[in-house]
C-alpha cells in the first residue's frame, strides 16, 4: 500500500510556512496570517503558523481556529449542560459582537504560547507515511513535523499529501 513510500517522499519545506516565536502576541499572529499567507501570492494550505522557541525548536502550531478560540471571552466558552444559560444563539452573538471592541482586543495581547497546539508528535524522514496518517487521524492534526535524527526539524508532512498518496493506492487497486 502507498508503494512503500516514506515521509521524506511527501515532506514539504518548513519555510513554506510562516514562523513565529512563542512570545509573539495573538494580534501579531493574526497580522502574519493575513499578510504573509492569505494576502500573499504564496498561500500554502493548510493555513498554519509554526511556533518556535529561542533555540529554533518547534514548540507548537497555530491555526485560525486556535487564534479565534483565544479571543473568545471566557464566559462564552463551552460549559456543562447544567451550567448553560438560557439564551438564544442570537443573543450570544450579540454579546460577543459587543465584546470584540473591548475584551477580545485585550485577549489579543496574550502570547501565542497560550493558544497554540503544543508540538508533541513528530515523525522521522524514513517513517512510513501510514505512521504519519495514523498520528494525524488519531490526534486530529493537519500536519506533522518531520525530524532528522530525532532532533533537527527538516520539514512537515501534511494531510493533503498523505490523503492523496493513500487514495491513489486505494483507487489504483480497484
Amino acid at each position, binding site marked *: 500500500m502507498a508503494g512503500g513510500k516514506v515521509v521524506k517522499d511527501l515532506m514539504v519545506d518548513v519555510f513554506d510556512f*510562516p514562523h513565529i516565536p512563542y512570545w509573539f502576541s495573538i494580534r501579531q499572529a493574526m497580522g502574519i496570517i493575513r499578510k*504573509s499567507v492569505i494576502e500573499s501570492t504564496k498561500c500554502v494550505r493548510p493555513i498554519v503558523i509554526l511556533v*518556535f522557541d529561542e533555540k*529554533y525548536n518547534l514548540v507548537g502550531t497555530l491555526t485560525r481556529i486556535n487564534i479565534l478560540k483565544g479571543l473568545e471571552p471566557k464566559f462564552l466558552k463551552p460549559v456543562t449542560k447544567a451550567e448553560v444559560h438560557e439564551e438564544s444563539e442570537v443573543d450570544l452573538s450579540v454579546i460577543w459582537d459587543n465584546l470584540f471592541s473591548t475584551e477580545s482586543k485585550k485577549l489579543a495581547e496574550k502570547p501565542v504560547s497560550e493558544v497554540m497546539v503544543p508540538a508533541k508528535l513528530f515523525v522521522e524522514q524514513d517513517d512510513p507515511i501510514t505512521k504519519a496518517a495514523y498520528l494525524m487521524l488519531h490526534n486530529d492534526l493537519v500536519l506533522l513535523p518531520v525530524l532528522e535524527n530525532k532532533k533537527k526539524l527538516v520539514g512537515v508532512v501534511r494531510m493533503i499529501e498523505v490523503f492523496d498518496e493513500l487514495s491513489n493506492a486505494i483507487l489504483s487497486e480497484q
Partner: protein
Amino acid sequence: MTLIDRDNPQKLYLQLYEILRGKIESGDWAVDTQIPTEEDLCKTYEVSKATVRIAVSELARQGYLRRQQGKGTFVCKRVIPEGLSMFTSFKELMLEAGVSFSTKVLAQTVIMPVDDLDIKLDITEDKHIIYIKRLRLIDNEPILLQETYMPHHICPLPLEEDLENNSLLEILEKKCGVKITSVQDYIGITYLNEEEGRLLGLPVGSAALLLEQLFYSGKNKIKYTRSIKRPDRFKLFIELERK
C-alpha cells in the same frame, strides 16, 4: 618604572599616554582611584604640563579617566569608545580595547516581518527573518543588548552557527560570501522596558543609548541591528578630517 625615552622618535605625549594607559590596564591604578596631579606627573616623567594635559585628555576621551571639577582626575570603569561608521564587530572592538568580554545568545530563531521590519529589510511580508538576540558582557557585567534581524533567504547559516564565540559579521563575510559595503547608523536614546532593564541590570525607565544600524551589501539590505547600550559603559565619537 617605565620612563619617557627622549631618543624615541615617538612624540612625548604619546609615550606618556601609553605609560599611563599601561598603569590603568594592569590595575596598577585601580578603578575610582585618583591619579597624581599634573605637577606630580610632570616631575615624575620630566615632561611639560602641556604634554601631561594632552596625554590625560586622550585617556579621558577614550574612557579610561574622568575629570571631576575641583576634585581631580580618577580612573574609571573602562568605557568603550565606538566610531560611528563602524564595520568593526563587537569582538574586534573588545579585543582592541583589551577587555575581557563574553556573549550570551538569548535567541537564535526565525520570525516573520512584524511592525516595519519588511520596510527596514526591504523584503516582502512572506519572507522569513533570522532573529538573533545577544547580551554582551564585560567582566561578566552586561553592557549591551543587541537584536539582529536578517533575511533568511540571503544566508541561512547564522541560524546554526555558534554565535557565542563567533562574529556574525565574519560569518556573513567569510561563510556566506556577503560583503558588507556600507552601514547606516541611527543614534538615539531609549528608555528601558522591564526585560531590557533586567538584562542590563538597570532600573526600568532608565535612559540608554540606542544604536540602530542598517548593513548593506551594494544596494541590498543585509541586516538590521538594534543595540541598547549602557550609557555609563559606552560613548560614541565622531572624527572629522579637513580635506
